Every structure is written in structure tokens, then in C-alpha cells.
């Protein structure tokens, strides 16, 4: 099964390598967005099944954006990511409606797939 993924991150280097890595591992990367507003547009337009979402975006917190995405019809599975570790966000991650959190240093296709299939 080839999941359709949208990558949301304001660092172009990360987006570029993450796209190739996920494609290598069988994902279909349908698009990229560099902030919260364009991420919302892209989700409405491209209807991804998975959104790999950076916690710190320039215009909005990834945690807030995850809540908005969860409220949409046909909500995609949101996986949060950050260059910081999970403990740097205190209890905020456990209260989030996102499916999972993967530190950027630990990102692999397998980790993402495991997170998405996690129920």
C-alpha cells in the first residue's frame, strides 16, 4: 500500500531529503508546505492520507494545526516531528490529537509507517 504523504516543514533541506527518503521507502509524497496556511490549502487540495508535520512553524504551532486538521472531514493521520526530542514539549504531545511523534533524527519510512498504522 502506498500512502499519500504531505510534508509540512519550514526548512527546505529537511523537506528535500525527507521526500526522497519516504519515496525510497514506498510512500507517495503528494506535496510540501512551508507554513501552516499553505499546509491547510494543500490538505484540502491534495487530500493526503498522512501529514508529516513540524511542531514549530513560522506562522502557527504544529500542535494547533494538528487540532485543526483533526477536525476536518476525512482527516489525515498527522505525525508530528521536530529536531527537538519529545521531552522538550512536556505534556503537550500526550494531549495532542496527532497520531504520533517522531524526532527528526529518528525519521525513517519504517518509523512513519509504524506510526500511521498505530491505532
Amino acid at each position: 500500500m502506498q500512502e499519500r504523504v504531505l510534508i509540512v516543514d519550514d526548512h527546505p533541506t529537511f523537506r528535500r531529503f525527507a521526500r526522497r527518503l519516504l519515496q525510497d521507502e514506498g510512500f507517495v509524497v503528494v506535496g510540501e508546505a512551508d507554513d501552516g496556511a499553505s499546509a491547510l490549502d494543500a490538505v484540502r487540495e491534495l487530500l493526503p492520507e498522512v501529514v508529516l508535520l513540524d511542531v514549530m512553524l513560522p506562522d502557527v504551532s504544529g500542535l494547533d494545526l494538528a487540532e485543526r486538521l483533526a477536525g476536518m472531514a476525512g482527516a489525515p493521520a498527522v505525525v508530528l516531528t521536530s529536531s527537538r526530542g519529545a521531552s522538550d514539549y512536556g505534556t503537550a504531545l500526550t494531549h495532542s490529537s496527532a497520531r504520533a511523534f517522531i524526532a527528526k533524527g529518528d525519521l525513517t519510512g519504517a518509523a512513519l509507517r509504524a506510526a500511521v498504522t498505530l491505532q
Partner: protein
Amino acid sequence: MTSLSWKVGAAVAFAVGATDVVLSAYQGVTLSDLVVGTAVNAVTISAGLVVWASRPASRMGVLITVWGICGFLADTVGLLPDSRLGATVGLPLVLLPSAVYAHMVLAYPTGRLVDRVDRAAVGVIYAAALLWSLPLLVGSNPSGCTDCVPGVPSLLFIGQIGPLRTIGQGFSALFIMLGAAFVCLVVRRIRRASPGVRRTLWPLALAAVFGGAQFIARSAANLFGFASWQETLLWLDRASGVAVPIALAIGVLTTRRARGPVGNLVVELGNVEPGGVRDALARTLGDPTLELALWLPDRGTWVDERGREIAVTETPTRAVTLIGHELAAIVHDPDLADQQALLEAAGSAARLALENERLHAELRAQLDELRASRARIVRAGDDERRRLERDLHDGAQQRLLGVGLALQLVRARVPDGEAAELVAEAEQELREALRELRDLARGIHPAVLVDQGLGSAIKTLAKRSPIPVGVSADGERLPSHVETAAYFVVAEALANIAHHADAGHVDITVRRENGSAIVEIRDDGRGGADATGSGLQGLADRVRSLDGRFSVHSPPGSGTCVTAEIPCG
């Protein structure tokens, strides 16, 4: 007071008396009227000249002199043989002394009308006093009116005026109102005056209320035609005239007696605490609104007794008296300016105490500056840490993460063998480097503190601690400098406990009390912590830089309790 001004005063009094004697002989005025009238005017003019000469800065002398001259002119013109000229000049002068009297009372003791309401009232009183006679000069009542005042033969006479009587009654009613307004203003003046000024004001105020009341009675008698009252009212008028110089004399004597408190001031200043000179001066001068300003020559500024910079400016409602050469200034009730001698005596008595007060204020100012600059340095340091953490996160960390992802791509593309092993090794090294970098950034300034506040940040610290930690903290956000200081107190305390305390459990509480954040870290370890060690000393400095309090309670064998209290203001 020069002997010349005494001589001028005596000469004028003599001239006034002689003129009235000659004219009254001509007119056949009774002796008692002559003696009383002449005495009042002569004494008033002389007293005015004496005050004028002895206190040229005060306008009271001018006003008293003018009042006396107006009284003399009004009386003298009344004694002139009947003539159109005499009536034309004399009639407008009849009420002028009353107007000057009102002006003088309301302007006492400086001779200046400071209050806007007083100025307006005096203006209306002057206008009414000059204008009331005009209708009587230009016209006469209709010839058929039996109980009307007969017309005055003046140079301005035009003819009969129908409503002349009504106009006269209108003026009488206006005078009653003005008299009442005057009494109200005098009472208001007394109520508003500071105790020191009230001491000198009350005799004149009593005389003025008496004068105002008799003026109202006289106007009422005119309005309602009580002719039989006239004789009594005339004597009351004379009595109220005499009451004023007596009241002024009592006022002056009271002021003299008030110099007694300067002696008490000297005694009081012997025991005064730093910052207490203002209160002592305020008590001595009877002005609770008094402000003390101290001159700091090195800075070229005025400061109060706490070393805070203040402006010293003279306004219509605040007067300034300088003490010593570039030492201090008293900002006070302008009415006190009339008691220059008392102000100077108090200032001289307080000079040594003021020198001390100034040193104290200078020290306070320097301490305040030092405290403010220390807090600024700590805050600037915190801002710099936050910026550094952000730079690490956005810069080096992102690039290394990119390299990590690139290595994963490479690993997938090289066949198993030495190259693949090298790539895997590089990935492992990179992961370690990233972990170290993350720890470094977290130590510089934790992101969770900025994003979610102190409670969450402390819970994160608790999770990483090797010793079980209980945390009691609500989610309330505090000012960022308070959160940062409190966070580092907890982080350092936990590090100390892990290294030295041999503890089994730690309890951390954060609460807000009386506008301060109170952080307490308590362990059940071996105690006996050295509060002067560089770690705890650094924390104490950081907390004190924010005007906070820091304490370490660590009896040997009974655990350690570190407490920081940081004001949130």
C-alpha cells in the same frame, strides 16, 4: 522698617485726621462720628504703609493702604459741601472700600489671589461696587414716588427713570448674594488651608465673616426698607472696620509664636532616622503636603529622600524655598511664603540633618541604579541564551539532520560491505552529535519553558532526574525572567541532589504568594549542603538580581530545602 516710613505713616495719619476735622467743622458732624471715622482711616493707612515698608515682597501692605485711602476718600467726599462734582465723584466711592476689603481678605497673607474662583469673585465685587451708583447718577425716581430715594444732583443727570427703584433693589439683592459668596469663600479658604497657615488665618477670617454678615444685613435693610436699623448697622460697619487691624495684629503675633516649634525641630532632628527629615519639617511648619527635594551636585538633579529623581518647580499652588547653598529645597503651600523667617529658621536648624539626608539619598539612588543594572544584565543574558538556543535549533541542528537523512539515502544505495558499514558508523556518530547538541541547547535555554511555562518545564526536568521527583505546580504563566530564574534554580538544585545528596525522594513545589513566585526543592538526603559553593551562590546571585530571596536550609542528616522567592512585579 526705616524710620522714614514710620514718619511718612505718621504724617499721612495726621493729614487724614486734619482734613476730616476741618471738613467736619464745616459740615457740623458729631464728634463721635468724627473720632471713629478718622481713627479707622488713619490707623488703616498707617498700618498699610508700615506693612508695605516692612514686607515689600507681600502685596498686603499695598492693599491695606489702598483700603484705607478709599475709606478716607469715601468719608471725605461725604463731608464736602453739596455739589454736583462732589456727588459725581463721591457716590461711586461709597462701596469701593468694601470691595478692596473683600480683595484684601481673600488675598491674605501674600496679597495675591491664587485661586481662580477667588479672582472671579473679586472681579464681580469690584464691578458691582463701581456700577451700582451709575443709575442714581444719570436719573432720578419719578416725581410721584413718595417712598423713593430722591435723585442725586450729579453732572451725569439725564432725567427721570421709571424702574430706578427696581434697579436699586436689584443691586441690593446682588449685594446680599455677593456678601454670602464672600463668606463662603472665606470659610472655604479656612477649610482648605494647611494647619500652619490656618493658625495665622483664623483671626482675619473671623473678622471677615463678621464684616460679610454686617454687609449682608445692611443690603437687606436697604432692600426691605428697615430705616430704623441704619444707626445700628452704621456702628456695626465701623466695628467690622476696626476688627480687621486687630485680626491682622493677632495673625502676626501667632506667626511669631509659631517660631517656638523650631526649638522642638532641633530636638527632633537629633533622633531622626534617615528619611525622616521631611516629616519633621512638615510638622514644624504645619504643612502636611510639604515635599523635600535634595540636590545631588554630581548628577545635577533633585531627588527625594529615597533617592528618586523629582522635579522642583514653582507653580501658583506650590512655592519653593531653597535651603543652604545647593543643598535642599522645600516645596510647600505658597501661603507659608509669608512666614519667611520661620521657613529660614527651620531650614537652618535642619541643615546638618539635610546634609546627612542627602548622603543617604545619594546612596539610595546609587543602590537603585546598581540593582536595576544588575537585573538588566541578567535579563540580557537570558535573552542571549534564548537567541543562542534558537540559532542552534534553526542552524547547525537542521543541517546535521539533513546530513542524517542523506546518509540514510546513501546507505540504501550502497551494497552491503565496507562502504555500508562506514555509512552506518557515520550515522551513529551523527546521532550522538545531534543528541549532544540537543542537550547543549536545552541547557542553554529549554524550549519547553518558553512554549509551555515553568510547570511543564519542571515536570520535564523531573522525568529526566535519576531520583523520583514529586512536582506540585499549577500551569499559571509567570513573567519570562521569573520563569527562567525559577527554572535554573530547580535544574541546579536537582543536579546537586543527584551528585551529592544521596537522596531517595525529592519534592518540588511552585506557588504564588503576595505577588511573588515561591519555589521550594526539598530532598530527604544527607543534608549539610555548602550554600557558598559556586552553584548555589550563582543561583542566589541570580535570584537576588531580581530583588528576590534565596535560602538553603540543610542541617546534617535531615535533608536539604532550597527556597527561592522571586517577585513577579
